């Protein structure tokens, strides 16, 4: 137990089951390291590169022609806000990776604008992640990662790379942008893995 803060009573959440250290918001805050890239769907492309260097590509028409899913998930940002029951539309990574031949254990997501984030490949599979292009029934706004972002809601939201342009699969785990800047390499909100070493 730590200390008690004299005079602090707190604003109780009212029984909502949030990961430790999170608070509930109904807004949709933004965390980005730089200017928002504005990518036209005409120029958009998503590439999966395997550990052997083989590339699989989708342009916007190819992505949106794939079977899409409606997704309703809670999301948790490392800056401590959580937003419940957010609704998205996108293509499951299971669909995108179905014909990709790989034995890799890790993936690095790359974004327009240079952002990167690392994930174990198994966290992208089995209905756990999507390339999302609609939020709340509307095309995903650039501020929130549009035209398309990775959506991996079971991890802190920095793993859900905005403006995603590809995945590079690999046998070894490299660290992405925030992971190099002191944040946790995995980022499970329920284990409160915020910073390296947590």
């Amino acid at each position: 137990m730590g200390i008690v803060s004299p005079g602090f009573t707190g604003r109780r959440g009212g029984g909502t089951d949030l990961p430790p250290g999170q608070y509930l918001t109904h807004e949709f805050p933004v965390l980005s390291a730089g200017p928002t890239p504005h990518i036209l769907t005409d120029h958009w492309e998503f590439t999966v590169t395997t550990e052997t260097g083989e590339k699989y590509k989708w342009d916007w028409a190819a992505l949106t022609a794939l079977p899409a899913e409606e997704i309703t998930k809670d999301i948790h940002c490392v800056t401590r806000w959580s937003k419940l029951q957010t609704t998205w539309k996108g293509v499951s990574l299971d669909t995108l990776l179905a014909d990709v031949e790989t034995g890799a254990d890790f993936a690095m997501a790359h974004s327009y604008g240079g952002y990167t984030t690392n994930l174990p490949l198994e966290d992208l599979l089995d209905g756990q992640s999507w390339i999302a292009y609609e939020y709340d029934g509307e095309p995903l706004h650039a501020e929130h990662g549009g035209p398309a972002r990775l959506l991996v809601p079971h991890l802190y939201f920095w793993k859900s790379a905005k403006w995603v342009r590809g995945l590079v699969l690999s046998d070894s785990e490299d660290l992405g942008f925030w992971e190099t800047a002191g944040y946790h390499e995995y980022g499970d909100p329920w284990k409160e893995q915020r910073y390296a070493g947590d």
Partner: protein
Amino acid sequence: MSWQVATVADVRRETETARTIVLDVPDWPGHLAGQHLDVRLTADDGYRASRSYSIASAWDGSDGSTIELTVEQVPDGEVSPYLVDVLKVGDPLEIRGPVGGWFVWKPEQEGPVQLIGGGSGVVPLRAMLRAHAVAGTTPVRLLYSVRRPESVIYVSDLKELASSDDVDVRLVYTREAPAGEPRVGRIDAELIEQYAFKPEDGATTYVCGPTPFVETVADLLVAAGHDPARVRTERFGPTGGPR
């Protein structure tokens, strides 16, 4: 990185809604200008709430074990009203940090430094100005957008910092300007052109403020030809407008 107990050494009212808290932290490891820390409050029944705050002071080891936070009260906030109105000198405060390795300025960094802050977004920029005052050799400019003269945080501090030949401070008033200042309005392309370093100057630009402010300024910089890779941002609060 573990939680440690700091003690409030001093408090300074900055504006009607913002306060600087001076903390004595016996085991503070030091920090880079621009980094933040986590604050954790605990009620007497064990209920806890945590938030992150930018560190307002620079660290050069000469301040003993003192660091400063400046907190702006968020309407309907849970932690900030306590820090701004309740916490008093002598109280304990649990903190953990420093955190963040991107929105930071290091003295050995090459090139000019452009700081652009909106409202309490000036807090980490003030840490950078302080660090620069001790160890900086390159020119630095601050564009600081506030609603009105009473909204300026660090008034006397900025005056002192701006007296250096290396430092240029330009205040921008969006609602109401002091006597003698004709311009009232948000930062726009013309102001960026007039007061910011040019793309060819090779500056690193730090933009911090509410999300709509940062979005606007970062877009203006990119449109003016600045390399997006040299524009570092930190946003807070909800998005404006439709998404």
